[in-house]
């Protein structure tokens, strides 16, 4: 039986079932996720802060993300960012933890995506000249396509964030103009009232 072919085929086919997990969640203070990663995988992860609950927030609405490996070693440390994308190679097999920390007092909606490429190369197993290049290329193509999908998800999340910012800005412009006009009218009314009172008092005092 063609065992070398089987070994290469195994690598390729298992590569096709590596998935991407894009989810959205609302963060209060802290939120942690875990993901089991095999040795040698390239892990791509990205996050975008979609929106913040406070309507008139003027402070930076970034979050912190700390990525820890299975032996509690720090893989990545990202501070105060609203959107970021990174990748790393898993040199230890096991459970990797992604912990988000929210420093602002408002709830924030975060879109988080993790994609682990399961593709492994085992050159010593495949000796068949015909299959190895073909499978290798198909595997690479698959990996490239998954990467494109991962980047698209990140882009979509950023577009969502921008859409929300735009709508808020539009509503904010109207509110600001109306508020301003009302304030001006009130201010001039107050001015007239104060002047009248002033002169009435003066006139009343002088004519007594």
């Amino acid at each position, binding site marked *: 039986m063609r065992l070398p072919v089987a070994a290469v085929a195994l690598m390729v*086919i298992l590569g096709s079932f590596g998935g991407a997990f894009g989810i959205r969640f609302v963060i209060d203070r802290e939120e942690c996720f875990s993901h*089991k990663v095999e040795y040698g995988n390239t892990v791509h992860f990205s996050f975008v802060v979609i929106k913040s609950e406070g309507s008139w927030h003027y402070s930076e609405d970034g979050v912190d993300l700390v990525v820890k490996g299975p032996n509690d070693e720090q893989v990545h440390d990202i501070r105060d960012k609203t959107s970021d994308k990174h990748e790393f190679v898993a040199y230890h097999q096991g459970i990797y933890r992604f912990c988000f920390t929210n420093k602002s007092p408002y709830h924030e909606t975060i879109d988080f995506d993790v994609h682990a490429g399961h593709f492994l190369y085992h050159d010593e197993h495949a000796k068949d000249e015909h299959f190895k290049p073909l499978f290798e290329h198909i595997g690479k193509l698959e990996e490239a396509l998954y990467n494109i999908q991962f980047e698209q998800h990140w882009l979509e999340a950023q577009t969502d964030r921008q859409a929300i910012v735009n709508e808020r800005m539009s509503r904010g412009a109207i509110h600001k103009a109306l508020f301003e006009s009302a304030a001006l009218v009130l201010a001039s009314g107050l001015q007239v009232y104060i002047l009248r009172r002033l002169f009435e008092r003066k006139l009343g005092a002088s004519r007594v």
Partner: protein
Amino acid sequence: MKLGEARWLWTLLIVAAAVPAARGLWLDLPSTGSKCISEELHNNAVVLADYYAFIGEDYDVNATQTPTITVKVTSPYGNEIHHSEKVAHGQFAFTATEAGNYLACFSLDGDQGGKKVTVGIDWKTGIAAKDWETVARKEKIEGLELELKKLEEAVETIHNNLYHLVNREAEMREVSESTNARVAWYSLMALTICIVTSILQVLYLRRYFRKKKLI
């Protein structure tokens, strides 16, 4: 033909890959309250999800102690798509009839003895949720051809996503343009109101002082 001989191998591999490994993202469940995750879905998107709850750091298939959780999946308009209580693992699948935000909430059933409960969610949408075995059987393709067909579908998905992004960008551009026009018009309006109010003020005060014989 070499590819034809390897047919048993391909089926074996496809079956092997279908056996659930500890895939998916793992969430820490708090002892009280629920944890919710959501995803924005287009119309007619197919979703296949697998969830499993376990105690401790790693998922052990032969664990004797399994916690029980409550799962609730709701559509953007509030309709309940899936609801199960007191389960340790399960699946749900649906086709999105409404475009929007779909929410899946997990909560612990009562107090599980204070231990740390983790929920693993394997959430597949689009081509990953497609039943490839049926497609292979129906179109009588196998092995390499099936893999290439999957890649073709992946490329199609990417193309659709790009198209969707282009539409979103066009919408956003319109909102920006309208905001720009609004800012201009409303500023002009506020300025006009300011000038009109001050003129009225001056006229009123002049009339008042004339009445009081001060001018």
